[in-house]
């Protein structure tokens, strides 16, 4: 009861004009700002598309005039489709993680399914794992591109592609670290519904990073 008494003194802190938590308002504005960040990166990529003086190229084969060597189109769409699928699925587990934290303290639905669904640790872990798998795919993609002769200095495609997808990868990395920290806190003391806003803003960020990837995958990989 001492706990609830302490909480009842705190309405001054929870009162806001919109009724939303400050952190939630701020993360939406942060996402708005990030939209402009990625819009600049994506526009630059599109502006420089087809302006390369040398290959390798994303969608077309390229013959090196000096060596006569033929380089195939460099983007591997099937492999990236797999990593895209994994990243999209991580949004699902993110939703489940948030729901599990918000519903903590309520009765757990019966059966194994109910217990699985109410495990925030499991879903936070799955989200981190899928994010890490996506990053693994990206590391594989980057190294194989470098082996095929596409570096960040090679041509306009190399500069704009590595910078755009690299910025996205950095965002995924930050997200994995963020969610990993929440997972560690969850394992240490258990996340409670009052902590849900922390998970909520991490989830908004994570979904945003996912949505950006949908744009990148469509504009860079799918549209020739």
């Amino acid at each position, binding site marked *: 009861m001492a706990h609830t008494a302490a909480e009842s003194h705190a309405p001054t802190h929870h009162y806001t004009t919109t009724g939303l938590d400050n952190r939630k308002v701020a993360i939406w*504005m942060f996402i708005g700002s990030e939209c402009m960040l990625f819009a600049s990166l994506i526009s630059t990529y599109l502006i420089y598309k087809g302006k390369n003086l040398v290959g390798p190229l994303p969608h077309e084969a390229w013959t090196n005039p000096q060596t006569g060597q033929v380089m195939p189109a460099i983007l591997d769409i099937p492999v990236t489709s797999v990593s895209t699928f994994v990243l999209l699925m991580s949004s699902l587990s993110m939703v489940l993680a948030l729901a599990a934290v918000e519903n903590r303290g309520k009765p757990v639905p019966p059966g194994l399914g109910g217990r699985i669904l109410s495990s925030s640790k499991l879903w936070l872990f799955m989200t981190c794992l899928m994010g890490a798998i996506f990053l693994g795919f990206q590391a594989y993609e980057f190294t194989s591109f470098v082996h095929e002769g596409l570096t960040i200095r090679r041509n306009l495609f190399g500069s704009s592609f590595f910078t755009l997808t690299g910025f996205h990868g950095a965002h995924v990395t930050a997200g994995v670290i963020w969610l990993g920290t929440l997972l560690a806190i969850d394992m240490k003391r258990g996340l409670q519904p009052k902590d849900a806003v922390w998970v909520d803003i991490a989830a908004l960020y994570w979904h945003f990073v996912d949505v950006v990837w949908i744009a990148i995958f469509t504009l860079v990989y799918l549209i020739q």
Partner: protein
Amino acid sequence: MATVAASPTYTDSAGSHRTGIMDWLTTVDHKKIGTLYLHTALFFFLVGGVEAVIMRAQLMGPNGTLVSAEVFNQLFTMHGTTMVFLVIMPLSAAFFNFLIPLQIGARDVAFPRLNAFSYWVYLFGGLFITIPIFFNAAPDGGWFAYTPLTGREYSPGQNLNFWVLGIQILGISSLAAAFNFATTIINMRAPGMTLMRMPMFTWMSFVVQWLIILAFPVITIALFFMQFDRFFGTNFYAVSAGADPLLWQHLFWIFGHPEVYILILPAFGLVSEVLPTYSRKPLFGYAVVAYSGILIGFLGFGVWAHHMFAVGMGPIADTVFGVTTMLIAIPTGVKIFNWIFTMWGGSIRFTTAMKFAIALIAMFTIGGISGITHAAPPSDMQQTDTYYIVAHFHYVLYGGAIMGIFAGLYHYFPKWYGRKMDERLGTWHFWLNFIAFNLTFFPMHFAGMLGMPRRIYTYDAGQGWELFNRLSSYGAFLMAPAFLIFLWNFFRSKTRGEVAGDNPWDAATLEWSIPSPPPEYNFAQIPMVTSRYPLWDITHPERMAGIPHSAEGWDDAKQRTGEHVTSGGKHEADVAPMHIESERRSAKELGIPMPNPTIKPLWVAAGILVLFSSLPVMYAGKNMIAFAMMAIGGSMFVGFLYAWLTTPMEDAH
């Protein structure tokens, strides 16, 4: 109202257990952070002013030999960069910090520690970009750093590295502050303080935060491209690899034009507070002034290429951007007329603040009209890159932004320090400054029309430029003593000015309903607001005839009338109908929880400084030291950020 006998002071806070320098290094109080911003920006104002005076001394007569071409390049680059990023933006930030929570009836900003972080990042970024001038290595590519001139090929020295990294650091500060203030304005308003009742300064600040949020990421990316080109050999601006040299210009001005409104709108907000107060009339057409501010912000994103008419974008692009640029004159003109109609029929008091506010209206109008002349591409072709442009933007930025900020400083000084600035010295400052300003910049119109290009470090005799340059230089030499009078007045009045009382100007908004300087908690009881000029409802109801009143938004307040326990065990309501608070107590006595002071934001900011400083070291070829610095900076950043986020902001209560 009541005469205040005792000397007002900040240190009324029994809750604060730190003193002296540590108090400033660890503060999370928005008023103190505003004070830090103010003093740092005034320091940089002095630096930028000295740079300007040296330039004017060099250009006073033909074939000047005071400084070399290299040094002159650094001077004009740093003068522009300093005045934009280290003076006007932070002076605005000082007012955002000090005023926004007070004007909306909040006890602090939404994220007090993030606020401290913004300041420290600004300070470190400012030093990072300024200190190289002492080693003859200051940035020298102009304040807009056009590529490919600023690429590694044509600018191989460290100079541009300090610019590109310094602006990046300052961008972090501006963005963090913008998220903070926008959240504060959206979410921390007192009951009844609806959007259409916010003081106009808060309104204009709100628009500015959105401009920062949406424009700064674009320059961030443009800077990353430049940084990657210079440090890692990418091709973003490498024409030899097929890159478009206009990419930088487009990205820069997509940021750069909203930046112009980031600089001017806070000043517009300040004079919109000053004019009604000294005209003893509500602001004319409040809603239209607010809407025109939003429209300026919105249109500001669609005019960037008018900075690029000379690059040959073609007739269609030129026409479109010419038209959008002329459109933006409409909401700006609306504001000018609203200010004039605010004064019309009012009973005006010509205080120093009022003089500066009127000067803004007049001088900004001149700058606006010369702006329209280069909104038309054919006319701009004659003016671009000449001193006519220099005259234009000094009329809008000095005649507009700086005049507005001076108006705000004289107006809000009593609230800030509890004492008035000296009006006699203020009058001297105003007239000297006003005459010197016009003497400096008006002749530049003629020099520009006669074809004198910007950024030249010297010129030959016999081109008809001598007279105008001489006049401009005299003006600059006169502006320096004007600023020194201001500084003398400012620092002297802090301790020796006339004690002001709570509401010395008989103003109408919430910040004037509490003691001067405000107590740490701002409002002992959060006021419930019924109109746009809540204080005049009490002091001057006769001025409020045409102003709508309602109890809108009070329902939410009912939740918070839930009483809270004070340390003495008494119960007190947290909110109360609009009232005047002249009693000064400590937050502890009142039982108001205050955020704890903390040094962690400073250390996180220092981590960022070390991280960014590693890159010039790497550029110099000292890779091992650079990697060590990256490791140290990175761990400082992560470690202190973790410590910050896992420490509760305030003690359990």
